[in-house]
């Protein structure tokens, strides 16, 4: 088929989307009729959205005030943004600090530290292990560090006497199970594998069955990397989780592994993965220069607790997340 054909089909798709948007709009406007407006009129005034106009007003207010200069505030904000906290979260933090009216930059920084710690408080970071066996599913986008995290998690649970078993449900990536087998050998736990290209939900279920039969205390399921935008793959993930609960079991944790170097896409990831039941975040690769600030933005917006951070390539390099330590690192110069 010619490219023109595809463009045309995309046009058709767009027409339908547009029709729908339009219907929603006209419903909101209270009539199905086509609204007629003058040229200068705006249908939705984006400058009235929070954040956009706010910024302008904020600047106005600040420039007319002595004390901390606008440059210092911007610098503080950029420091947070440079740690991948995102414009919105950084802006809100700086805004909150502004209201306390600190006399100088150093004091401001202290208040920022307190504010960040406040954001990171009030969530339960403990790993939930309340099943028999407890079921943990590890998910994330491609290359986030899922398989390594699974191995480290297994080592941790093995250490604490939970006798974990691993389900290698990444049947998509070539040799993913080989990678997991090597790790499992090092850790000393068993792996249930499926056929390459097989049904991951079936592998996960097999692992659960095997775990039960062998008296395992925890079943850790590794899954294939998937972008949150891939509808079918997200459905597949839902299915895995559903099938694991088929015999009345409850999945204790669905952990989203996120690369610490991830930028603002981390928010998009978390938003979508939460819909399929993610219960916590593992921030991988925190041993580099990345500060993982996006996790703070995620926690702020979704109250999704960061439970662990990965700090190296050894099996023991998975440690519980510590808010104050994280904040200190976030505010230290790169």
């Amino acid at each position: 088929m010619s490219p023109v054909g595809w463009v045309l089909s995309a046009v058709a798709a767009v027409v339908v989307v547009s029709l729908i948007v339009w219907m929603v709009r006209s419903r909101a406007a209270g009539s199905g009729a086509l609204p007629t407006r003058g040229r200068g009129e705006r249908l939705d005034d984006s400058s009235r959205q929070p954040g956009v106009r706010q910024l302008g007003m904020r600047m106005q207010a600040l420039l007319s005030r002595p004390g901390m200069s606008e440059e210092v505030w911007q610098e503080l904000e950029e420091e947070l943004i440079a740690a991948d906290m995102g414009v919105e979260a950084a802006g809100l933090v700086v805004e909150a600090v502004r209201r306390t009216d600190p006399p100088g930059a150093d004091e401001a920084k202290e208040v920022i530290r307190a504010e960040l710690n406040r954001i990171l408080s009030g969530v339960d970071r403990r790993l939930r292990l309340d099943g028999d066996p407890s079921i943990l599913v590890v998910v994330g986008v491609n290359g986030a560090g899922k398989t390594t995290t699974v191995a480290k998690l297994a080592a941790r649970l093995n250490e604490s006497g939970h006798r974990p078993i691993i389900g290698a449900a990444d049947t998509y990536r070539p040799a993913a199970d080989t990678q997991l087998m090597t790790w499992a050998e090092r850790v000393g736990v068993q792996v249930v594998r499926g056929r390459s290209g097989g049904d991951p939900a079936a592998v996960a279920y097999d692992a659960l069955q095997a775990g039960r039969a062998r008296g395992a205390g925890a079943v850790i399921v590794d899954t294939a990397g998937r972008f949150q935008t891939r509808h079918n793959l997200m459905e597949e993930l839902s299915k895995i989780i559903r099938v694991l609960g088929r015999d009345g079991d409850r999945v204790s944790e669905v952990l989203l592994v996120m690369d610490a170097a991830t930028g603002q896409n981390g928010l998009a990831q978390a938003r979508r993965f939460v819909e399929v039941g993610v219960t916590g975040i593992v921030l991988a690769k925190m041993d580099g220069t990345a500060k993982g600030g996006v996790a703070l933005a995620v926690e702020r917006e979704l109250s999704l607790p960061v439970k662990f951070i990965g700090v190296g390539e050894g099996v023991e390099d998975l440690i519980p997340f510590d808010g104050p330590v994280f904040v200190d690192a976030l505010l230290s110069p790169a």
Partner: protein
Amino acid sequence: MFETLTDRFEGVFERLRGRGRLSPREVDAALAEVRLALLEADAAVEVVGRLLDRIRTRAVGAEVSRSVSPGHQVVKIVHESLIETLGGRAVPLVSGRPPPAVTLMVGLQGSGKTTSAAKLAYLHKRAGKRVLLVAADLVRPGAVEQLALLGERIAVPVFSDSRSSPVPLVRAALRRARREGFGKVVVDTAGRLQVDRALMRELAAIDKAADPEEVLLVLDAMTGQQAVSVARGFLEHTDVTGVLLSKLDSDARGGAAISVKEAVGCPIKLVGTGERPEDLEVFHPERMASRILGMGDVLTLVEKAEQAFDEQRALEMADRVMKAEFTFDDFLEQVKGLRRMGSFGEVLGMIPGARTASADPQVIDREIRRSEAIIRSMTPAERADPKVIGGSRRRRIAVGSGTSVQDVSGLLRQFGQVRNMMKSLSQGKAMPGFPGISGFGLPGGAPGPAAGGRRRGRSPGPPGRRPRTPKKLQKKKRKR
């Protein structure tokens, strides 16, 4: 959520229509928005400032022509500056070295080196070269096996020896390549942190042994503010010749591309756009600029449609759209296809200018379900020819779908109007645009700034401006 820059600028320039030149104050107000957009796209803080300075210089005093709004004018300047920053044109891969010409794949853990190595090998292979893949990642468990399987898939031999170490392995691979007459050699290396001294020294040694024509830094498109530090770190130890931006099939805006190009000067040469071996493409600065600015991505939309819709059916559908024969059955089928493309919010995000705050994907989803229910309560004859639906039929449909007669009537009326729009589109007129969807641009229709270098038709008006109701439609309305 993010709105397109064009939308934001409209607010800034609302009162300025008709003025001759952009003043410094107006430009600064607009640039505050540009700054936000760039930072939200993960462009590094340190490069954003420099970029803004350049844009300011170009924008201040720029003549605003009568035909475009000041907002549109600034978007154009920003867009052009970004394209320039990203390198203007696609930079080709190095060629012309006597065989075996080596490419070294380097990068952080999980950036996508192994997959990209196989894709690059496949690219060379399709160009008629004899390629040898070398699995020199001896650190990550399963990496050698993964490359072996990928090589098998694309029928490219893979050289490895898991008991060796990278430098001797690369030397041995080169000897084999010379002996057996391979034209290209692609070496996959272990992932490493740019601050890991020991591993970076090892990389320098591999670089020396391989004497590559190309060292590609594989960089995850989702990378945040770290991109600059990563690129600098690798450049310090190896002569990186280009960047391969991986995972561009995610919905990351990819501001990292700007960071790397602007701060380190490394050209971006290739982009990874999927999981198949053929999903490696030449980098297009103008596409990337649009993406970073959140101007929608019509090409991605087209690609997604390609995956979600059956070829033959899609062609027929497009044909019917053009002839304005679009029926309710077609609508149902389209909705089904759209679901396969992802959530409506996503699809909406790919349409330039369509992603606005009031188009809440969840509300849209509810609306679609309601419409589907109504249509499903129609008989086949009614779906094909809605004109037969009179008062009593409307009542029946409303009861059947659990909606009200007003809902049914509303849908019927809107559907009629959409068909009219389709007709005007097919008659070669500009896409009139739908109320509330500003900046509605499509190739062949009314390309917006998003279309950038790939616009195909003449732009009939600045997208982002509130679409005008076409005369034809107004006439029809009056009749009713």
